[in-house]
């Protein structure tokens, strides 16, 4: 199960907590559509938004040297202020939905 599929299984709980999920990756929209997810998955092919948030991993993909996101999850409040950040120390490990829901309940 991918990170995004994991979030999808708890999507109702996120909405009950008054939160919406917004995913951003450097893949094209067609690839995101094929994932069949209920929440928006945004396409940032040149990494502009990733750079603005300081989560760009430049030239990380082999062969194409495309930029990808370093895995990170941010919680924004109603005023779009960053309230919590989860920053992976390696790219294999992603934050679990349970941790994000716990943090939503706390702030």
């Amino acid at each position, binding site marked *: 199960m991918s990170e995004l599929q994991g979030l999808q299984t708890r999507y109702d709980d996120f909405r009950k907590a008054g939160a919406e999920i917004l995913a951003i990756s450097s893949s094209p929209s067609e690839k995101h559509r094929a994932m069949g997810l209920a929440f928006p998955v945004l396409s940032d092919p040149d990494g502009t938004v990733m750079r603005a948030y300081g989560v760009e*991993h430049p030239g990380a993909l082999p062969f194409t040297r495309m930029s990808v996101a370093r895995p990170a999850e941010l919680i924004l409040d109603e005023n779009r*202020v960053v309230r919590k950040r989860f920053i992976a120390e390696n790219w294999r490990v992603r934050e679990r939905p349970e941790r994000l829901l716990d943090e939503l309940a706390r702030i």
Partner: protein
Amino acid sequence: MRTPDARSSRRVAWLVWGGILLSGFAMASYFLIIPRISVALRDSGNANIALGGVGVIMSLAGVAAAWRAARGLKLAVFSLLASVGFTGALAYYVHGLSYQVPAPEQVIAVGTAAPDFGLKDQEGVEKSLVDFASKRLILVFFRGHW
């Protein structure tokens, strides 16, 4: 009845091919099978490295058996190199390469306003933070693959 000679070369073949296949399977399954079945095994990666280690031990035993039987040594050594290669590459990916990410200090700080943007969603519709006013947001920067 089998001769001792035939029995020992069967033993060599079993260890040699078993070692290659097991360590190759340990590496490939970490990327292809484990992500579908267990988040815990995927996050750790050590179960696959251990399985690859068993493959290395089998290959090593294969080299010893081939040496004693004085046949099939070349293939046995190749098996050992391959299984050490597979398992070493996996261990390096899990414990070395995957940690090579940009410094966490660069990430936008807690307490700052998130910069707005306009990006296309999976239906081709442009979305920005304003579209989600009055809601809390989980912004997931997704690297891909899993």
